C-alpha cells in the first residue's frame, strides 16, 4: 500500500440541508489517471474541492499517505502544496506575468531560491508550449493558453497528484485540443491525475479508472473499457447514451 496517495472514506458534504455528496469512497494510487464523469450538479466538482480542502467535508476522512487531512487542526496549506489543482476558470494571478505566476508559489511556499524557481518554471512552461509568452499577463493570452499556464503553475510545485476541475469547460472548442494534449502527455509520463471532465473521449482513452457520479454518490466505477463498453447500471447507460447520440 506504499503507493497509495489518497484514500477517501465515507466522505459526505452538505450545504445547509442540501446533501451534495453522500458516503463517497475511493482511492488514488500513484500513477493513476482517474476520470470523474457525471451530469452537472452530481457533485463531481464538490468532491474535487473537498479533496483539496477548498470545501470542508461535513463528515468522513481524506487520508493522504494515511494521515487524515480532513481532521481539525491539520495545516491545509502544507497539504495543498503537495496536491496541485487546475481550475475551470484558470485562476491565474492577474497581477503577475506568466512566468511570475509559476515562480511565486515555489519561492513563497517551497522556499526555493528565485533562480532555481525560475529554471523550474521555465522547464514546465516549455513543456506546455508557453515559453514565448512568459512575459505576457493573463489578460493578454487566450483561454487555452491560460489553462496551459495554470497546468505549468501547478506542475512547478512538483505535486504528487494533480486535480483537474473541468479544465476544458470554459474554453472555446478550438482551444480544448491544446489543453487535452498537454494533459494526455502528462498522463503518459506517469503523473497521478484526478480529472473531473465532460470530455468522454479523454476519460475513455487516457484514464485507467473512471468514476461515474450521480446525485452525490458514486454510481459506478471501473476500467474505462468496462464502464464505457459494458455499463452495469441503468443510470450509467442513460448518461452515456446521451453522449453517444450527440
Amino acid at each position, binding site marked *: 500500500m506504499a503507493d497509495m496517495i489518497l484514500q477517501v472514506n465515507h466522505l459526505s458534504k452538505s450545504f445547509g440541508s442540501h446533501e451534495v455528496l453522500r458516503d463517497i469512497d475511493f482511492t488514488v494510487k500513484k500513477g493513476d489517471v482517474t476520470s470523474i464523469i457525471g451530469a452537472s450538479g452530481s457533485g463531481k466538482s464538490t468532491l474535487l474541492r473537498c479533496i*483539496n480542502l*477548498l470545501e*470542508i467535508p461535513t463528515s468522513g476522512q481524506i487520508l493522504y499517505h494515511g494521515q487524515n487531512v480532513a481532521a*481539525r487542526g491539520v495545516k*491545509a*496549506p*502544507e*497539504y*495543498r*502544496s*503537495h496536491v*496541485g*489543482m487546475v*481550475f475551470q*476558470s*484558470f*485562476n*491565474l*494571478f*492577474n*497581477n503577475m*506575468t506568466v512566468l511570475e505566476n509559476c515562480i*511565486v*508559489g515555489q519561492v*513563497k*511556499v*517551497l522556499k526555493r531560491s528565485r533562480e532555481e524557481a525560475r529554471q523550474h518554471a521555465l522547464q514546465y512552461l*516549455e*513543456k*506546455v*508550449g*508557453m*515559453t*514565448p*509568452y*512568459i*512575459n*505576457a*499577463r493573463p489578460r*493578454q*493570452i487566450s483561454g487555452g493558453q491560460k489553462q496551459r499556464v*495554470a497546468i505549468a*503553475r*501547478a506542475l512547478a*510545485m512538483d505535486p504528487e497528484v494533480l486535480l483537474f476541475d473541468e479544465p476544458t469547460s470554459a474554453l472555446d472548442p478550438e482551444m480544448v*485540443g*491544446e489543453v487535452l*494534449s498537454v494533459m494526455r502527455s502528462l498522463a503518459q509520463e506517469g503523473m497521478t491525475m484526478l480529472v473531473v471532465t465532460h470530455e468522454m473521449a479523454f476519460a475513455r482513452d487516457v484514464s485507467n479508472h473512471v468514476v461515474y457520479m450521480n446525485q452525490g454518490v458514486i454510481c459506478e466505477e471501473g476500467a474505462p473499457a468496462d464502464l464505457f463498453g459494458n455499463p452495469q447500471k441503468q443510470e450509467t447507460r442513460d448518461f452515456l447514451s446521451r453522449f453517444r447520440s450527440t
Partner: protein
Amino acid sequence: MDKFSKLFADILKLWGKYGGSYLTGMRNTLVLALVGTVIGCIIGFVCGVLNTIPYTERDPLPKRIILKLVRVIVRVYVEVFRGTPMVLQAVFIYYGLPYFTDNAVKFTNIWLAAMIVVSINTGAYMAESVRGGIISIDPGQTEGAKAIGMTHVQTMLNVILPQALRNIMPQIGNNFIINVKDTSVMFIIGFPDFFAAHRAAVGASYLYFPSASVEMVGYLTMTLIASFLLRWVEKRLDGSSDYELVQTDQLTMTAGTYNHPNKGTPFDEHSLEYKEERRKRCGKGGR
C-alpha cells in the same frame, strides 16, 4: 468690466502684501493632506486586512473570539470617525486631551495634532475602501493561491492586496483631494493652512471677495495637479499593455502553439518588433 479690473487690482494688492503667507499656506495644506492621506491609507489597509481575515467554525474558539473582537473594534472606529465632522474631531482631540489630563498632556506641536486628526479621519474612510477593494477581487484568485499552498498572509501580500491597491487607487485619489480641501477646517485649532492665510489676510485688509477668489483658484490648482498626478500613477500601476514574445529554438515549440514562425501569432501586433516592422514598411510604402 471695471468691476473685473477692480477685482484684479485688489488681488494684485493682496498678493503683493500676503503672497508669501498664501504660498506658505498652500505648502502647509499640501503637506498636511499628503501625510494625512498616506498615514490614513496605512491605517485603512491595516483595518481592511484585519477585517477580512476569514474564520470558520473549524477554527479554535480563542481565534474566533479575537477575530470577532477585532471586527467590532474596527467597526466602531469607522462608524465614529466617519460619522462625525472632522472640524469637531479636531477640537475634541486638541482640547480634550489637556482637559482630561489637567494640562499634563497637550499638543505642543500643532502639526502633530493636525496630522493625527486628518490621518485618523482618512483611515476611517480608507478602512471601508480597502475592505471593498479586497472583497471585489475574484474569489478564484484566492482559491488559485490557496491551491498552491499559500497561507492567508501570503495570499494577501502577493495576490490580493496588489490587485486591491490598484482597484482602490481612485478612492485614494478621492481621499487626497478631499483632504486638500477639508484640511481648511484645521484653522479651528490654529493650523496655518491655506484657508488660515485667507482669514489672516481679510482680517487686516477686509478684501473678502478678492481673497476668496485667490483661495478658489489656489484650491482648484492644487486639486487639478493632484488629479493629474494620480492619473499618471494609475497608468504606471497598470503597466505596459505590450509584451514581447521570447524568441526560442523553434524546434522545441509544441505543435499547435505556432502555425509557422513567420506567420506569427495574433499577439504579434502588440510586440515591439511588429511595430518596428510596420513602421518601416509604412515609411517605405507611404508617401
